[in-house]
């Protein structure tokens, strides 16, 4: 198989995720469980024999959602709701709402009141800095397991969970390997393709995904390493649904080598222990990976994590991409940017709606950042 074919598959699924899921459902007759945040324990959904799939929000125009959430709601939440209300997600059998930010919390209520489907609230702790909250976290995962068993009328055995954990660990390892391969040899794969791989990973049948990832790793490992002098960029934020950004950066003699995005490394970061109690192990992964700013681990965590990412991946500039109206990410920004200034690290912050196109102004701002770096 050629790399091009493999990448074309990931790109197709990333751009038309709902079509893929509809076909998958027809073929496998599996229950499809949508999720609204990376704090969904996909292992439990898999163990229940269902298919976990991240709702990305595909709507370009919002109308139905406007009748439920004000315009100052983030586009991610509003787009997901639009898809739900418009019937585009009718193939879903249920939706999972992990407690993360205020907007997803209210989205859960609004969804429950307006869109008929199985509904799962996962009442996660907000603080992850104590043994007490860790114990509670594990109990919440266990409750989700019971809830999904009851809703889908199935029994989940320990073996089912172990197998699901093993599969997800293999997938996370594989995506991590790809990220690392690319970080050391950025020319082997385009940034937009890498973003499509992660997006597709949240959609695809997990066994098929693992096969495709492993194929790609094999093909890329054989690619010759080129001396790459392009400036190394980190993208920071929640979701980047604009593949064009990667191309704009690559056109300017720079390259995105890492990110801390929910639609990026936050998805594969951290493995689940396969020897511990599975509920504790799943909750520990959510605590040990770099946590979302809507969770508390320490007052300095997000600043320290940024410094670590910069050091680990030899970053030369940071591009913050925030979804407009997203509070958790934007509150950390001023202090993080002050730290970057102390480090003399170039940065740029852009706020975007999920359905916005990249306009000239944004294009120019990114260009300017990259030009500054060339000096």
């Amino acid at each position, binding site marked *: 198989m050629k790399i091009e074919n493999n990448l074309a598959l990931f790109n197709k699924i990333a751009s038309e995720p709902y079509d893929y899921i509809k076909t998958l459902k027809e073929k496998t007759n599996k229950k499809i469980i949508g999720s609204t945040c990376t704090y969904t324990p996909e292992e439990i959904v898999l163990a229940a024999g269902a298919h976990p799939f991240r709702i990305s929000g595909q709507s370009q125009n919002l109308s139905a959602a406007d009748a439920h959430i*004000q315009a100052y709601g983030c586009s991610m939440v509003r787009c997901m709701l639009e898809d739900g209300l418009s019937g585009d997600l009718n193939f879903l059998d249920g939706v999972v709402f992990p407690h993360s930010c205020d907007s997803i919390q209210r989205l859960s209520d609004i969804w429950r009141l307006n869109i008929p489907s199985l509904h799962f609230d996962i009442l996660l702790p907000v603080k992850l800095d104590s043994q007490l909250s860790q114990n*509670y976290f594990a109990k919440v995962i266990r409750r989700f397991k019971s809830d999904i068993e009851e809703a889908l009328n199935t029994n989940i055995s320990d073996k089912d969970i172990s197998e699901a954990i093993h599969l997800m660990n293999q997938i996370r390892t594989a995506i991590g390997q790809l990220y690392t391969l690319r970080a050391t040899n950025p020319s082997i794969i385009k940034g937009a393709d890498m973003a499509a791989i992660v997006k597709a990973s949240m959609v695809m049948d997990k066994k098929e995904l693992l096969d495709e990832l492993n194929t790609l790793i094999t093909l890329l490992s054989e690619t010759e390493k080129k001396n790459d002098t392009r400036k190394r960029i980190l993208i920071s934020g929640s979701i980047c649904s604009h593949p064009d950004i990667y191309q704009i950066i690559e056109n300017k003699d720079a390259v995105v080598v890492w990110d801390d995005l929910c639609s990026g490394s936050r998805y594969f970061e951290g493995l689940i222990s396969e020897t511990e109690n599975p509920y504790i192990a799943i909750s520990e992964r959510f605590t040990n990976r770099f946590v979302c700013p809507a969770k508390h681990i320490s*007052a300095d965590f997000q600043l320290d994590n940024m410094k670590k990412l910069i050091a680990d991946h030899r970053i030369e500039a940071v591009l913050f991409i925030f979804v407009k109206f997203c509070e958790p990410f934007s509150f950390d920004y001023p202090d993080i940017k002050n730290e970057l200034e102390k480090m003399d690290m170039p940065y740029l912050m852009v706020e975007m709606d999920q359905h916005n196109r990249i306009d000239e102004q944004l294009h120019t701002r990114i260009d300017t950042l990259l030009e500054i770096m060339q000096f």
Partner: protein
Amino acid sequence: MAERLKATKEMKRIMRRYYAQAKYAHYIGKKVAWITSGGPVEPLIAMNIIPVYPENHGAMLGASKKGGQLSEFAEGLGYSPDVCSYVKDDIASTITKESPIKGGLPKPDMLICSNNICGTVLKWYEIQARNFNVPLFIYDTPFVHTEFTEEAKEYIKEQTKEYILFLEKVMGHKFNYKKMDKVGRYSLQSMKLWKEILDTAAHKPSPMTAFDAFFHLALIVTLRGKKVVLRYYKTLLKELQERNTKNSGAVDNEKYRLLWDNLPIWFRMRWLSDKFANHQAALVADTYTQAWCGVIDYIDENDFLGTMGEAYTRIHLNVGVDKMADTIKDFIRKFDVDGLVMHSNRSCKPYSFGQYDIQNLIKDMDIPVLMIEADMTDDRKFSESQVEARIDAFMEVIKEKKRTK
């Protein structure tokens, strides 16, 4: 024009004394804790720690019309124009010292944050924990969409113990359980009195409006658990009851009764009050100030510490939209209101998202609803002419409805 409440003067005196004490806490050997408005303050009082509320300060900054200016300052530091103005006002005031309290709020020795009102406070308190380099305790209240689970109950109960250990560590001495018992009883009595005060508004005409409640709320927020609150609220209650005996309303010739949802628009309180009063309309109740007495039934006065967690978790902002709609329905019936005014507050997403669904859920009550888009302190987000036109149109609908009833 209806007379102002006489008790108000005393309330101002109490708040002045409270802030003076907080300002000079360190000189009198006391420690200061900043705490969120829905946070568990009683253990602080039992430990002789002075609680300070940045949200109350935010309200003061808003009322003194400094919200927009301070938010703008914070935006210059990199904070987004779209995030909570309380946070931005507080951060800006910490730096500029701009405040109705000379020199701004006293520095905290510790921060106590409960996410029962929103997730925003988590970020706010993390920022201030970095800024002041002081310990931060999070009292994590799992959201109650439809049920308060057994594990959440246990988690919150255990957190109360964790909270006490935190306070003991910061203070360097043991927790005073005996005093806590007394503080818990005072706190519960304060909440009950506050409820009685708000309930006087069921009388026609109403002796007070939501604007009075917004003002008198400061005590139940900042000093509950202190005896002074009981004393003051008893005086206030007596005055309101006397008004009811004399059928003396807060709004002259009250004809229409309205319910307010969400935080006040602090910088336009007088304007809004006059605007509605000119239509002979009284905002007789609101969902915001009721939050400080809405969970009384969950507290056992003989076991305040053991039961406060559930009460703090079940507050109005930490429950599902349908439960919020039920509460609004109860208020519509209890206060016999003719219309609902919803403040769609750009600064408070958890309070505002779901308001459209609440409108759908209360349709059977058959009352008109007005939605005003604004912000609790940021006057840049308020369009007077637009709001005025909407209020006038809304009142016309209410008048017409009442005429044809």
